[in-house]
């Protein structure tokens, strides 16, 4: 969080730089099956973010030393394409990508029914093609869609969204300027059916009351995003939307 409180990001009518009100989400579009050679895949446009996730497996886990007798291992990679950011993003080792890969894996392991596939491996690949803000949330959500597209059983979908604080106002689903210059960022990964969490981070400064408000925004937003996800799945696979 930059904490640059002097940049005006909400006007006197409570309208944000991209025209949204405090509680509004950015526009979201979902497409399934965008990587034809994968076992499952999905893309999400979320504001200007464009993220593709693909799933391969369950497949044989090798080398054998990574195998687990009683369950599948989940191999998750999050990566930014070199043209995904205003300044070219240099390929190669990157601590931020490693950490996001790890928390994404931790979140997905909490819902994927790994015990159904002993000794196997499931690969989840997340590529950020165009980045705005909240790519880790979009990536995690897209990954759960790709897993669904691959037919991997999960106890629930994961919906991830980040609310935060800008100009001392708590707002839902931070955009790029808000993420750069805001005062707090609270990304959460929510199971829409149970309301439980599998992912949580936070940076910045939130009073106890502000914290609760951001938390509630995320919970409500997750339910809305979940509806869009269900529609996309129904559109491809039929069933009630």
């Amino acid at each position, binding site marked *: 969080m930059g904490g640059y409180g002097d940049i005006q990001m909400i006007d006197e009518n409570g309208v944000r730089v991209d025209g949204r009100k405090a509680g509004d989400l950015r526009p979201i579009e979902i497409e399934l099956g965008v990587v034809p*050679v994968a076992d499952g895949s999905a893309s999400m446009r979320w504001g200007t973010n464009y993220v593709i996730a693909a799933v391969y497996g369950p497949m044989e886990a090798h080398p054998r030393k990574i195998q687990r007798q009683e369950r599948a291992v989940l191999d998750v990679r999050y990566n930014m*394409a070199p*043209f995904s950011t205003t300044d*070219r993003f240099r390929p190669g080792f990157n601590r931020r990508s490693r950490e996001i890969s790890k928390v994404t894996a931790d979140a997905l392991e909490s819902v994927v029914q790994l015990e159904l596939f002993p000794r196997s491996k499931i690969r989840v690949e997340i590529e950020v093609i165009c980045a705005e803000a909240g790519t880790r949330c979009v990536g995690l959500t897209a990954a759960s869609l790709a897993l669904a597209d691959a037919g991997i059983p999960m106890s629930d979908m994961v919906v991830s969204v980040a609310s935060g604080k800008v100009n001392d106002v708590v707002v839902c689903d931070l955009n790029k300027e808000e993420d750069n210059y805001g005062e707090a960022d609270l990304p959460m990964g929510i199971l829409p059916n149970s309301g439980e969490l599998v992912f949580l981070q936070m940076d910045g400064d939130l009073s106890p009351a502000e914290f609760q408000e951001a938390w509630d925004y995320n919970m409500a937003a997750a339910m809305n995003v979940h509806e869009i996800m269900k529609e996309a799945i129904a559109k491809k696979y039929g069933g009630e939307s």
Partner: protein
Amino acid sequence: MGQPLVSELLRDHLQELANRDERADGRTQWQGRDLSVEIGVLERAEGSAKVVMGDTIVYAGIKFQLQTPYPDRPDEGGLMTSAELRPLAGRHHEPGPPSPLSIEMGRVVDRGIRESGCINTKDLCIIPGEKVWQVIIDCFAISDDGNMFDAFALAAIAALQNSTLPGERFDVGEDRPLPVNKTPIMCSFQKVGGRFVYDANREEEVGGDERIHITLGEGDHVHSLQKGLKGVFSASEFAEIMDAAKVRCAELRKIVDSL
């Protein structure tokens, strides 16, 4: 260790098809897959293209950076091409540092562009001896069903021809289109079942032998050649694919130039 066996079965199958002058997906020897090329698809890039060839899907994105010119070429900018085959794009793509194959792809695509002279590096000069543009072409695979070389090369030249030097963002003058003088086109051939075919798909790559990449410019001038993989070929085989390349490169050049 079962892999070589499966591969033998596939090779036999492809050999039988070749004996009947057929291909696994019904194409003829020199026929390409369904193709679409879109430009302007990446919001954060200064030029971009998406190429779909059957189930092969790639992006190319153009980015520019300022750099200091080399002392012996004070009025010339730079050109760099990178090809990424991340594990997203296929079951067989491993995580880790760039594979030898992706390094080869980047270099082969780079050569075709560079050697054609389609970018005059003097057009990239801002202040001689001080500031020049570096053009970076990032080829990025979404779905690899074979022949990434041609998909990358086609996306790269389409993206280049439709990119904008971001003078304003870097505070070095106005935005202006990148001058691109020529349209080099690559066509790749793979030996499958004992004969060369154009635009091999993944199955043909796995069960095939050597591949030959030909980049041609206007007037059928040759700009770049590369033979990859184990395999022997004769002068007459080469003459035959060169003829096929001349025909196909001309068709593809028309598509790119009309975008």
